């Protein structure tokens, strides 16, 4: 059996390609950085795609806006239409939203707007909790709905929103919000800081109707090591972290790996 190949699509200014590649390889996948300078058609040779976090094109115009116009994204859209998995993390999520790959009609139906936070504005970084929702998302559908994962967020423009009233709620009903910001006990986050950006429907991620394209604001690749979980995290994952640290196994798999394992399982199937 050949190992599935994942292209880590790097636009200028992206900076999370190394840790994303490490997480993919830990999940048993072959990962290769695919830079914007290569011929777009070569992207077709891969089985799945990851758009990592960072600041593509220095966030000029809007986060992800310029990369979304790149010919590489046209190829990504075509391959996604064929059913190949695509995950965009943070800035990668902004690219997918600005390109209309999420929620998936090709028209741009959403924005990742500037964070809305009380008494502050701009960039915000914090560990949050996300709750798994029932969804066809290939990255999360193997996980128990209602389970809670700690992950870090770090962004200035991460608020999923739409000018069409009810659009975000409809996406939730359709299973296209596979992850919501939550309290540690699993209740959906009602406000800041558990919902760190004011996202409509507390959406931490939005996927395509078939579930193969995922735009995700938190960083699962930064939650791949149990020992890296913040001290502020409480609950079952904190217990596992403490046990791992006591056993000298800080590099044991953390909650973020579950999404990469989900991708690997989907590609195996």
């Amino acid at each position, binding site marked *: 059996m050949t190992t599935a190949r994942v292209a880590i699509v790097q636009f200028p200014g992206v900076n999370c390609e190394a840790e994303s590649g490490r997480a993919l390889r830990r999940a048993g996948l072959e990962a290769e950085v695919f830079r914007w300078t290569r011929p777009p058609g070569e992207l077709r040779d891969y089985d799945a795609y990851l758009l990592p976090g960072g600041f593509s094109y220095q966030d000029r115009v809007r986060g992800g806006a*310029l990369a979304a*116009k790149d010919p590489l994204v046209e190829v990504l859209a075509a391959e996604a239409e064929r059913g190949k998995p695509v995950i965009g993390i943070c800035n990668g999520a902004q690219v997918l939203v600005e390109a*209309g790959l999420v929620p998936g009609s090709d028209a741009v139906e959403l924005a990742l707007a500037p964070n809305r936070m009380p008494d502050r504005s701009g960039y915000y970084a914090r560990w949050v909790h996300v709750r798994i929702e029932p969804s066809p998302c290939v990255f999360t559908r193997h996980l128990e709905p209602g389970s809670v994962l700690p992950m870090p967020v770090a962004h200035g423009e991460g608020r999923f929103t739409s000018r069409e009233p009810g659009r975000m709620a409809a996406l939730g009903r359709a299973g296209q919000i596979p992850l919501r910001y939550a309290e540690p006990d699993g209740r959906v986050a009602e406000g800041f800081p558990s919902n760190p950006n004011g996202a409509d429907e507390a959406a931490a991620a939005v996927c395509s109707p078939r579930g193969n394209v995922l735009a995700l604001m938190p960083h699962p690749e930064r939650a791949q090591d149990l020992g890296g979980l913040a001290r502020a995290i409480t609950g079952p994952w904190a217990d596992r972290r403490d046990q791992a640290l006591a056993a000298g196994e800080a590099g044991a798999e953390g909650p973020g790996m579950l999404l990469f394992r989900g991708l690997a399982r989907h590609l195996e199937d």
Partner: protein
Amino acid sequence: MAARRVSRLVAQAWIELKADDPEAVSALAVARANLPVGPSLRGLRRLRLVEIAGKLPARAKIEELLHQSTQFYNPHKERCAVRLAVDEPAPLRAGERAVLVVEREDARRSAAERWWRHETGEVVEVREGAAWAVTFDDGGADALMDLALVRGRRHGLLCNPHSQDCRVAGETVPLPWLGEAPPSVPRRRARPRATRSRE
């Protein structure tokens, strides 16, 4: 009863980098390379438009206040033109059309308002948006909106209508422009059939 006259003014500060603006350079390059409207796009500049509304001093004092604080601009790197009346020209070049893009519900600059109050004792409202100055070889309002309003991968760049408002100026740039309501974002139009498969 006659309405009581309120001494409320609006000042516009048009602020532009003295050097080439990287944001405008990149937007122009990407639009020319990847958007159908690109080949006819001759020029694209970006200015920050700051509007101050309230009881304001004379022009010289306004200019001095703006120059004094980086809440508004950095005079070492940027130039600033103040506009106080609608019949004063905006700093646009021949053939340029102005498009304003503003974050919905997020245009107020509270830190700048606090600074102004601290310096002058007056309560003002400060808003900020991006004014894009666009020149086409040909094409009218349709081309301008096709560049401005994001609808898909091949159409629109400057404004994502799901979080931003977009306003196109006519021959005369409105004053106020940021503070005016309601926003004039056009409804989503049907995509042209000829380009639909490329989106």
